[in-house]
């Protein structure tokens, strides 16, 4: 593994090169990173962005993701062990999964009108598939000897699901949760771009319409930081959970 400092060096150099290039270009569409940083700092200090836009949006995103995660994991584990039912449902899943989630936005706009229910529905329905499908995969991959052992031990249902199936499926479930979390952020922004009165996506669209490119860039950078933070958080949680069952001690 390359040391942390050196891995980040590429990003630092890229930003350092961008700065003089943007200054020399002097285009209103591409402000220099320093100006973006200042704009971001000013707007973060101005609590409006945080309280009125960042927090509600992130709240919806996390709520939608949590609902999708719970439903997806429970349904996925049950289906993964169901055998026959899964065989009937898998063509349906293959079709639904192929529909790009952002296409749900117009549909839910019609169904729910502007606002939180529409955004929640978009996020839940959009991000449930990675969780569901990877949970199905995980539950179906319990090794036959582990299944036979559980049968011989005559485990209670709760022990079978929580102490055998769930941990066996955990690596795949967590991978699915990670995919769906980044998808949730994307859907949060898209649903706010078209159907919201607050949120970072709404701010982005507003800034664009006002030709306020500095704010636009500030929101883009903020979204990048958010995505990175959520992903790192989940990766850390994942390695904590999986450390116990890694092959090598």
């Amino acid at each position, binding site marked *: 593994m390359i040391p942390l400092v050196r891995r980040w060096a590429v990003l630092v150099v890229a930003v350092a090169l961008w700065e003089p290039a943007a200054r020399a270009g002097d285009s209103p569409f591409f402000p220099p990173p320093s100006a973006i940083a200042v704009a971001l700092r000013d707007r973060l200090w101005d609590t409006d962005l945080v309280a009125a836009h960042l927090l509600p949006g992130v709240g919806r995103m996390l709520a939608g993701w949590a609902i999708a995660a719970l439903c997806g994991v429970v349904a996925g584990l049950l289906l993964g062990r169901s055998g026959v039912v899964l065989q009937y449902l898998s063509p349906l899943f293959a079709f639904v999964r192929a529909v790009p989630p952002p296409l749900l936005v117009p549909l839910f706009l019609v169904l729910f009108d502007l606002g939180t229910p529409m955004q929640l529905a978009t996020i839940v329905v959009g991000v449930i598939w990675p969780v569901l499908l990877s949970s199905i995969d995980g539950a179906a991959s319990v090794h036959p000897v582990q299944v036979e*052992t559980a049968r011989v*031990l*005559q*485990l209670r249902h709760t022990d079978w699901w929580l102490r055998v199936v769930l941990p066996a499926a955990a690596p795949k479930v967590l991978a699915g949760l990670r995919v769906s979390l980044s998808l949730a952020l994307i859907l949060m922004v898209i649903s706010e771009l078209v159907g919201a009165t607050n949120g970072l996506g709404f701010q982005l669209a507003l800034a664009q319409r006002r030709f306020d490119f500095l704010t636009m860039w500030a929101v883009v950078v903020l979204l990048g930081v958010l995505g990175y933070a959520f992903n790192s958080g989940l990766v850390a949680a994942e390695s904590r959970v999986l450390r116990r069952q890694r092959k090598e001690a």
Partner: protein
Amino acid sequence: MSVALDVSGLAHRYGPGPAVVDVSLDARPGELVCIVGPSGCGKSTLLRAVAGLLTPTSGEVRVDGEPVRGVVPGLAMVFQDYSRSLYPWLTVRGNVELPLRGHVERSERQERAEEALKHVGLDGQGGRYPRQLSGGMQQRVAIARALAHRPTLLLLDEPFASVDAQTRADLEDLLLRVRAEHGMTALLVTHDIDEAVYLADRVVVLSPAPATVAAVLAVDLPGTRDQIGTRAAPEFVHLRTEVARLLRR
């Protein structure tokens, strides 16, 4: 004569080919019966039918006079593949306690697990994870888990086939000691002739696939056996030659 286990006319086929044809055998309470046969002759199928893990195509298995439909209470099984049969995400103690959950109270569960681990020479190892133990120790954990269950019928499917020779001898003696102390009926499947003769009160010799009973031999060796003396005894040599001759045909 009372019979703990009675298999009569058992036959099983997977798809077109028969795996087991007309096998009948029995075991008296407290008896250790070894089933020896060439690799792939259907030994494991036979054991799975006794365990209630599969329903045979025809024939019947009775445990304590009751026909087997599904896994019977009081049954424990030790698998060859200990690395999969033990759940890697549970500690040694967690694995041993797992089948007791929902049946005995927490304090008694811990007591029984500790006692079973002590029995197999693993006291103080409860907090470790299976992967941190050697193969022989892992199989001891599997035996401890079976013991904590207080089985009346113990099934062992090639339990010592994946460990080195010295560990194997230790585990064989462990099994004999455990059986002497607990007095459960035991059915052990192996392809190792010496192991079968060394351990058994009776040896059931199976033919090559599809399995039928080629012979049943009573082992007239003293109750307490030891790895050096017993294996040198004329009766032992005679029996192993006899079994080998039966298997050769």
